């Protein structure tokens, strides 16, 4: 891995905003594999089944490739494919779902064996409308598992918020290098 070409993966529950985040930040039209959603429980018209892809030029010749995973557990096989050679992982958690802490825990479990190899950050969405659990409670969940990485509130529709997530992951990756 060099800082010239950096791969970051966005993962998280369906509807957490992975596709939106990549579209918000990408300099190029994002590649999306959204299809019609037939799961009435998801409350959304379309859902990602393959991957999302975008890229952003940070200047100084540094290009960050942004990949998004599908959110549903039945697509877990894609998570591993998308994560190959990734240096950074962004967890996106939707705080409006019934049990955001359980969602976060499930994703930490699913990615557990890859976490030591990757710099991680968590973005908690929809915190203005749904204040609990707090960002601190999400961080406590990490601490209880012996994990420490940044947890921040984000609105993935805002480019600056997504850029903050990417900056955090890049800073951590540089520290590890």
């Amino acid at each position: 891995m060099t800082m010239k070409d950096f791969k970051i993966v966005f993962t998280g529950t369906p509807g957490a905003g992975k596709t939106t985040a990549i579209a918000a930040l990408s300099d190029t039209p994002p590649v999306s594999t959204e299809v019609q959603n037939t799961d009435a429980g998801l409350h959304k018209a379309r859902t990602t089944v393959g991957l999302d892809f975008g890229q952003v030029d940070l200047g100084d010749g540094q290009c960050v490739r942004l990949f998004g995973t599908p959110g549903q557990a039945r697509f877990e096989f894609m998570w591993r494919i998308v994560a190959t050679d990734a240096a950074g992982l962004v967890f996106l958690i939707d705080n409006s779902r019934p049990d955001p802490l359980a969602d976060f825990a499930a994703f930490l479990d699913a990615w557990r064996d890859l976490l030591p190899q990757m710099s991680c950050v968590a973005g908690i969405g929809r915190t203005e409308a749904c204040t609990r659990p707090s960002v601190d409670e999400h961080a406590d969940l990490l601490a209880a598992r012996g994990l420490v990485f940044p947890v921040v509130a984000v609105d993935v529709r805002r480019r600056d918020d997504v850029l903050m997530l990417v900056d955090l992951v890049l800073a951590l990756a540089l520290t590890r290098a």
Partner: protein
Amino acid sequence: MPTLFEVSSADVAAQALRAVQALLVDLDGAATIVIASADGFELAHGGRLAVAPARLAALVSSFAALGDVASRESSIGTARCLVIDASQGRLVVRCMQLRGQAVVVVVLTDASVLLGRVWHSLAAAERLVNDA
């Protein structure tokens, strides 16, 4: 009382099963057939199952979506069919409409089955269920 969504899904699942049965009759050498919704739910399956149909449904919906985006990015239109030609057989994945719903059909065959034969049978199955 079932919702419109549930009624529609039941009809699509019934037609999917009909298509699976037609394909099994039509295709010698087809070991497994699975029809999935575009978002990766198994709608119907048949044949000798070497793989869990729910897992295969999710896998092929991803393949189909990736194939479609590759087709569109390459300006060659909408993807209709993808083929994985492996050492001991083939996976033939076809995207089609079933009663107005986008579905993905995967046929797992041994290496002896001609691809053209599979394509012909898939097209015939699509006509069969949509003309019914």
